[in-house]
């Protein structure tokens, strides 16, 4: 259970990494975490923090065994300040529960991860903190006033002064922990700045024949003066996958799910504007029941894993103007690798589309794992079009030098200075350790890892048949 996250990996990966922890510890207090970190240092064992295990890149999975710290029992909701809309929550609490707790007290958690029922506060922050609601409300880092963390030295530290407006604060270490993937310390708790509960939150769904017909949607919405709460473009392949396990899913078609929040009068006026905008692009507005079902299912997008037992989701960010070209290239990569890929997208802000393609994988078939080549090839598309893959962790850390080029030293300095002895979640993100603590074979150079996936892509192209798990009306894309 603790030896993998949401990503499917072939068994052969165990040759490379010792993904099964030596110990799993479930602390309940910050003192226990501090003592644990000190003990791990004395025992010479790596320590790996873990939340809900909903990550995609092996950030919460051991690579050389060690002590895995399951934070889910540290899930207390502490101080609540309804007047200032502040809420203090421990790292192990799942986001869906935090949202429900806030809503019951007349407050609104403005952003939440796509995996909110399982994803925990600490886990999401460590993975960057972008999700539903980011288009209007920004990132998780914009709503955190203060955190408590345990550093690799075992010392508990408050990362900011909770009373400070962070836009002007000096000496604020919150940012170091966003996107840190648990490599510089363990997040213990955070104080969140919540939003006023909107009078209305209305989901709307528009149908397009296929993804290509909806290609102008992200750019058009981003270029308008509307500010929806959330915008998602769902691939017909995704609906076909969903329909296999959830028969009530609508027929395969491209769906554009937009939600609006705010005062009732403004939501109604914005909905009318949106109808005109998307109608002009050929979108057909679907009924409230479909929109509500899409909204209710926003945290449950990947039940298709049951079809083959393996599902690989990769996350990337593209410039909004490059969305159309991204669709072209995604289709080309999928065609060359003989794969069926669902390319779902979410607008993160006016310039950024989070593109989260996923595919099914047969882990046990001989050539099944070669499908992982898509992750590398699609990441290369992201770089080529001015974007980047999301997440580094263990499996995609080979992208790190390509991402930051001349600035890699700045990111490495954060790790080096906060964890000089490489004790907390070592051998990830800025470097990739193997399970072997021996010279030469102890690390995998990024080029070698990337080359391995390029070889997988080559093998994939030799495959005589394509992987097709569902039929899409209108033939293959």
């Amino acid at each position, binding site marked *: 259970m603790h030896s993998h996250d949401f990503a499917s990996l072939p068994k052969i990966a165990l040759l490379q990494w010792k993904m099964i922890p030596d110990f799993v510890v479930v602390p309940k207090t910050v003192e226990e975490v501090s003592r644990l970190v000190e003990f791990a240092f004395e025992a010479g064992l790596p320590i790996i923090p873990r939340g809900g295990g909903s990550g995609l890149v092996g950030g919460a999975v051991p690579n050389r065994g060690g002590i895995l710290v399951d934070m889910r029992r540290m899930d207390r909701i502490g101080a609540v300040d309804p007047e200032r809309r502040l809420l203090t929550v421990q790292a192990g609490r799942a986001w869906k529960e935090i949202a429900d707790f806030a809503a019951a007290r007349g407050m609104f958690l403005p952003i939440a991860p796509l995996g909110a029922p399982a994803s925990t506060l600490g886990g999401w922050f460590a993975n960057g903190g972008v999700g539903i609601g980011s288009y209007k409300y920004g990132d998780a880092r*914009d709503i955190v006033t203060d955190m408590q963390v345990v550093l690799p030295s075992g010392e508990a530290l408050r990362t900011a002064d909770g009373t400070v407006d962070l836009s002007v604060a000096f000496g604020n270490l919150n940012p170091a922990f*966003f996107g840190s993937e648990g490599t510089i310390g363990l997040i213990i708790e955070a104080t969140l700045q919540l939003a006023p509960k909107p009078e209305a939150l209305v989901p709307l769904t528009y149908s397009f024949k296929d993804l290509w017909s909806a290609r102008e949607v992200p750019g058009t919405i981003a270029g308008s003066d509307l500010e929806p709460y959330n915008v998602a473009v769902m691939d017909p392949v995704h609906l076909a996958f969903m329909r296999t396990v959830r028969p009530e899913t609508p027929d395969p078609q491209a769906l554009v799910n937009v939600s609006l929040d705010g005062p009732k009068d403004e939501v109604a006026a914005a909905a009318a504007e949106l109808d005109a905008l998307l109608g002009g692009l050929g979108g057909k507005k679907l009924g409230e029941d479909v929109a509500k079902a899409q909204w209710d299912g926003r945290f449950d997008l990947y039940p298709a894993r049951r079809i083959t037992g393996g599902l690989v989701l990769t996350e990337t960010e593209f410039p909004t103007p490059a969305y159309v070209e991204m669709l072209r290239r995604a289709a080309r990569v999928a065609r060359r690798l003989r794969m069926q890929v669902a390319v779902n997208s979410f607008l993160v802000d006016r310039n950024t589309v989070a593109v989260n393609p996923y595919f099914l994988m047969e882990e046990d078939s001989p050539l099944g794992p070669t499908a992982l080549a898509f992750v590398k090839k699609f990441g290369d598309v992201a770089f080529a079009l001015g974007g980047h893959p999301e997440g580094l962790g263990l499996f995609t850390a080979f992208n790190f030098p390509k991402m930051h080029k001349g600035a890699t030293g700045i990111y490495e300095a954060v790790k080096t200075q906060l964890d000089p002895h490489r004790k907390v979640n070592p051998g990830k993100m800025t470097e990739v350790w193997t399970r072997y603590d021996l010279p030469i074979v102890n690390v995998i150079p990024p080029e070698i890892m990337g080359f391995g996936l390029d070889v997988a892509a080559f093998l994939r192209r030799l495959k005589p048949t394509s992987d097709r798990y569902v039929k899409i009306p209108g033939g293959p894309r």
Partner: protein
Amino acid sequence: MGLLVDRAFIDAATSAPALREMIRETLVEALFTRNDRVLPRDIVAVLARQPSITVKVRSDTDVQKLVRVANGQESTISLGLPAEDYHYARRQLSVTKDRDIGVYLRPAVLTTHPWIVPPQGGIEVDVRELSSIEVDGKGNRALVGVGARWKAVYDEAARAGRVPPFFPLVPLDYAMGDALYGDAIFQSYSGPFRRYLYGVRSFASHGRKARIGFEEVRDHGTGYDALGLLQNSFSEFVVPVAVAVAMAPRARMMKNWVYHFPDAAKLAGALAKLTSSARPVLYANVYDAAGWALVHPGAAGGPLVLELGVAGAPTLVAAREKALDALLAGFTAKSADTPSPYDADARAYARTSERILKHLFAGYLTAPAKSLPALLGMLQEAGVASGAKVALFGAARGTGTVSLAPAFETPREPAKFYSVSRRLWEIAQKLPGASCNSRLAHLWSQDRMYRARLVVLQRLKEDIDSARVVEPTVPL
């Protein structure tokens, strides 16, 4: 902006344990006011150093060359200076060979106070000509040189049908770089500046280009948030040359509505309702009568003024106006025809900036909006105590806080800076949920956690600036 350098210097100067508490405050005051009769002779000698040369740069390449000269990778010959300047530069820099040759950026507009520890020899870089502005015609972003003025970005964006979604807290003629290494506060009603910052082009001390963040997209899932971590003190880690920032499409309708309030209690009540309502606005500027008169000379104003920027589709804006009028009940007058201060032409905007800059700013106070009456009362007392009239500029955020930049009508003298800073700091300590940000405030903070965080930042600086080129820490 020398925050780390100042802190390290003062901590070193007060490190004798027995004397620490006794001399620290005296030393801070003496350092700040440059009271050489109080300061030890070796400290006076350090503070008396001046930058060896000031170089006006015109391109990124110029900056790179300077960094490489400072770190010893290149000789001064690569600067490509005319013979006279070349020999001058060589002579000046060679004088400093016994210590680090630092590279220093000076903010275009510094409201509060220059750093305590001045540039120690080395090269002061004048970045005013790094002022290119490229507004992306397809997307909603811009790549801007650190020397470009915010107002020029606003005007250029308007020509491209865009608007920067962040505004200066005080309507001063800031350069964009001032938000990275000065005390400019840019923000919107709905977010801090970091939300709109995509990337920073810079040179690291080893002379290589270092693009921190990205230029076309956000930086989620790409490792530590280095942009957020270095913000406010960028020039102590790298030498920034350009920033990539988000723009927004210019809405079909943009309005600037001005509400006049008779007293702080009514304004605080209105702000509490506004920030609890989820009604979107671009900016919510707060002024007292004196601040209002400085920004809008000749326009009528009440004792307190709330200026709202509203944008959107015409139908939405119409609905919003009625709702806002109802929410802000308590105002005595409203004006819908006062132009936005940002739409003034560039020269008028610069003149307003000059008028405001004659005042003394000692820092910013942020507090919950409901504390506004108490906050204003304390600021008036501070004004009386310092024998100066106070003009107020500020802005509310959707978080329910209001940030104020009090401007004191008094000469910008170090002694005044010190005493007023101290008063602002004390006000923040008295008000629950309030904070003070000033050049001095962080020197007074002795909180254990704050000190631990600064140690981390100091270690980071030493690692990132391993060549000791970027505002190097000064050994005592």
